[in-house]
């Protein structure tokens, strides 16, 4: 296939093919409507999964594509969550504008942090992201006059979406809202990933040293993607606030930062849908297993993690891709 000599038009065609929507993607989005019809009692879980998936997507942009290892991205998730909550408490409960403001706030925080992030690597980078996440948590805990501390933010009142769809206990609005935003998130991520900017991020991931040698201001690129990623994470956090009408310190916790990285490894990094697949597996498994016994959950997820890293380091999607390639030849 690729062994044939390429004529002038081939490279264009090949590049266009890399960014085409595949049948799998279409199938996924159709399947995403299934919970509405077949599992209406699980709609709350479904919207949690969609939110986790959006968060995982934001981390994939920096982890899978640019190679920035982060153990503290919940910082931006939580900042977005609290911002959205505080906006409603200040009297403005319109969901979409609240969401956008929260996202912008988180993106701004990401921009500030990015100056530090692009200047460190390896263990220092991991520790700094971890440290920033932890200190944001402590700060929020200490500022309990604003955040409600360990009790969480009370009295979050979100107005109905488009003035008609109420966020109620049935969960239809919540899931529809979350799913729509996940879809938009994927569209935006696709465009970024399949642009020359996305290519330069992959260049950074593949060989950081070569980038300045081809004249690339790679630090600026990394700062841009980190800011975008923080914004998307913030939107995911705001989504959680608006659909559950609460905010807790958990949104800033190390637990959440670690969970999202686990989801990405499960699904496979750098593949756009890896975070989504990982989120589905993780959240469904946790829902089933943690219900039985919380210790059960830790044991099995730990074992699964070890297994995936050893046997399928490219995650479920990576393993599937290898399988498909084998079947083809």
């Amino acid at each position, binding site marked *: 296939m690729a062994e044939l000599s390429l004529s002038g038009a081939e*490279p264009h065609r090949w590049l266009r093919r890399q*960014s085409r929507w595949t049948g799998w993607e279409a199938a996924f989005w159709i399947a995403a409507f299934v919970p509405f019809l077949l599992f209406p009692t699980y709609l709350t879980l479904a919207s949690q999964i969609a939110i986790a998936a959006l968060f995982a997507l934001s981390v994939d942009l920096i982890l899978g594509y640019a190679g920035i290892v982060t153990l503290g991205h919940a910082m931006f998730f939580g900042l977005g969550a609290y911002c959205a909550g505080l906006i409603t408490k200040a009297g403005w409960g319109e969901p979409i504008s609240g969401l956008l403001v929260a996202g912008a706030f988180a993106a701004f925080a990401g921009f500030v942090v990015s100056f530090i992030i692009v200047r460190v690597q390896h263990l220092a980078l991991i520790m700094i992201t971890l440290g920033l996440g932890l200190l944001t948590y402590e700060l929020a805990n200490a500022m309990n006059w604003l955040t409600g501390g360990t009790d969480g933010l009370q009295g979050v009142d979100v107005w109905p979406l488009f003035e008609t769809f109420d966020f109620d206990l049935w969960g239809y609005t919540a899931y529809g809202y979350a799913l729509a935003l996940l879809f938009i998130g994927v569209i935006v991520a696709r465009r970024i990933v399949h*642009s020359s900017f996305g*290519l330069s991020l992959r260049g950074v991931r*593949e060989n950081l040293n*070569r980038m*300045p040698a081809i004249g690339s201001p790679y630090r600026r690129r990394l700062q841009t993607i980190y800011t*975008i990623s923080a914004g998307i994470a913030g939107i995911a956090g705001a989504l959680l606030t608006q659909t559950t009408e609460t905010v807790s310190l958990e949104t800033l916790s190390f637990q959440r930062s670690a969970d999202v990285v686990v989801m990405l490894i499960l699904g496979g990094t750098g593949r756009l849908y890896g975070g989504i697949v990982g989120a589905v597996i993780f959240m469904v498994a946790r829902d089933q297993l943690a219900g039985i016994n919380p210790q059960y959950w830790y044991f099995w997820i730990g074992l699964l993690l070890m297994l995936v890293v050893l046997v399928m380091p490219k995650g479920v999607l990576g393993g599937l891709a290898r399988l498909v390639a084998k079947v083809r030849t």
Partner: protein
Amino acid sequence: MKKADAVLRTENLTKRFGSLEVARDVSIALPRGARHALIGPNGAGKTSLVNLITGQLHPDSGRVLLAGADITTMPRAERVKAGLARTFQINALFPDLTPLEAVVLAVCERQGTAGQFWRSLSSHGKSIDEAFGILRQLRLDDVATRTTRTLAYGQQRLLEIGLALATQPKVLLLDEPAAGVPKGESTELFSVIAALPDDISVLFIEHDMNLVFKFASRIIVLVSGGVLLEAEPDVIRADQRVRDVYLGRAKHG
């Protein structure tokens, strides 16, 4: 050669690591269209000199001038934008990208369009054409859409040059371009280098004397960080000092 004619010039570059002097008062000049070779025994400081010129190493003293402008304190990426490119002795490629993607990236970076995250890659039509043209020139068009890590070593070395060419350099520094390449392919690789446009100044580090005498119009001999001699190939071949220091040893392989 008048000073004003030199596209790349170093003035008294000096660099030491503790007691080890990797560059001693090195002053060289590259005119337009040069095909100069940099030779010397192992550890003479050849790669270090290239690193000093490109900015990967900061000199203790001395200057680097590109087309008359002092670039001694310019960051690496800016020097590339000013027209100074290099290849690496050990391949510094993007293993998971295809040659097409890698060269398109380099072209977009040069054109300053690589940061446009809202435009799809396939919309950069001209850049893609230019990139493919470079690959064709290097006879890599067959493998343009195969992952770089699956390429043969000789092809990877060619891609290494391709990435540098994509930056449209005025000066090209090649660090042992044929290193590790089987004998038969290295001549072909050098014929590609010889076919480079006349206005590019090329300085290449090489150990294989046959290739050096075949392709170089002028040779600089570096020993222990300092320039021993700089002259035409015939003069170098005949010089006793060079023989003692370097050519004598080269005969033993």
